[in-house]
């Protein structure tokens, strides 16, 4: 079972890498922002599998933290950051 789960981790990680290649190519910012989401989901799956394989229950807590904060990069993307009023005003991306 350990071998199978380790192989699954490796496979998912390889998929993650391939997906990253296609996303980071762009062309737009929106494409690139998907990278954070992809790593979020793939990373959670990898951590859960890794926690089971290596018998590290605390890895589950790392996955929990990732799942909780997975949205933040995308929120920063639509808000264009916290700092400047001008940038904030132009962030019409989340009005309806």
């Amino acid at each position, binding site marked *: 079972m350990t071998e199978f789960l380790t192989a699954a981790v490796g496979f998912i990680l390889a998929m993650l890498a391939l997906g990253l290649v296609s996303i*980071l190519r762009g062309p737009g910012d929106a494409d690139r922002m998907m990278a954070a989401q992809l790593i979020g989901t793939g990373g959670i799956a990898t951590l859960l599998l890794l926690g089971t394989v290596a018998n590290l229950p605390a890895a589950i807590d790392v996955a929990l933290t990732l799942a909780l904060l997975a949205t933040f*990069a995308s929120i920063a993307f639509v*808000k264009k950051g916290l700092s400047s009023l001008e940038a904030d005003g132009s962030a019409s991306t989340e009005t309806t």
Partner: protein
Amino acid sequence: MSIATIFEIVLAAVVLGLGIWTIVVRETYSATVGYVAYGLLVALIWVRLDAIDVALTEAAIGGGLGGVLLLGAAARLRDSEPTVADAPGKAVRVCAAILSALTAAALAGAVLVLPDPAPTLAPAAASNAWATSLANPVTNVLMAFRAMDTMLEKVVLLLAIIGVWSLTPDSAWGGRPGPRHQADPHSVLVFLARLLPPIGIVVGIYIFWTGANHPGGAFQGGAILAAMWLLAIMAGLADTPPVRSRWLRLVLIAGPGLFLVVGLAGLLFGAAFLSYPPAQAKPLILGIEVAMILTIAATLGLLLAGAPERSARQ
């Protein structure tokens, strides 16, 4: 070659590739996205190295606050990017390349000449855990065996916030940091900001509390709480407090202040500065950590919110 080794090679290759891409790509924004993704993957490496405490920190900072900070900075830089497009000269580039190569060589050399087995204080830390009756060795090192370093780290956080606040224009001094965020109250961002923070609070306090015996602790928990606070701020559901608020300042110094008081008490009544009487070690450490999680959450949140921009009445 076992499957685990193959997995490690894949992981290292992905992280290295992403790192190189982050350096090579020319646009600030893309590099930032690459770096955020890189940070999340590095958390996987820390888990693989059994350094779960570090992985938690990496996930909490890299996944939450770091991304917000860096992407905001990149969005700000993007407007000014064409003006700084004048590339550095050839001599500067060659010097930078030589310097980088030397640094890499020095690091590689240091790793290669490490004696085998590497010198470690881990068994000593593990065998003295009885002194604090906390089971997490990392917490023991941070809060007892190397308490001085940890206390000074918190003082550094305080200095950082003073540094940010010192950029305040006179007209806004004492006011609220950052812009007042406004968002369409029906947007999905506001929806998330209504749902997630209570869950995040429970998770953050859990990560903090479990730090006594398992990986976790005040810094990771505080980072999660700060992220939840920022989410509410970014959705316009909360505002940053005015920096002249006495409560706020009390919270900001609570962690290092209590740490210092306990340390001085150790000097007066005990063996040395920052020595805990064994019977009270655990409650004292927990007390410091409770003050610390509040301080860390407030400090990290305010560091990201930036310098005061508006008068307190606004």
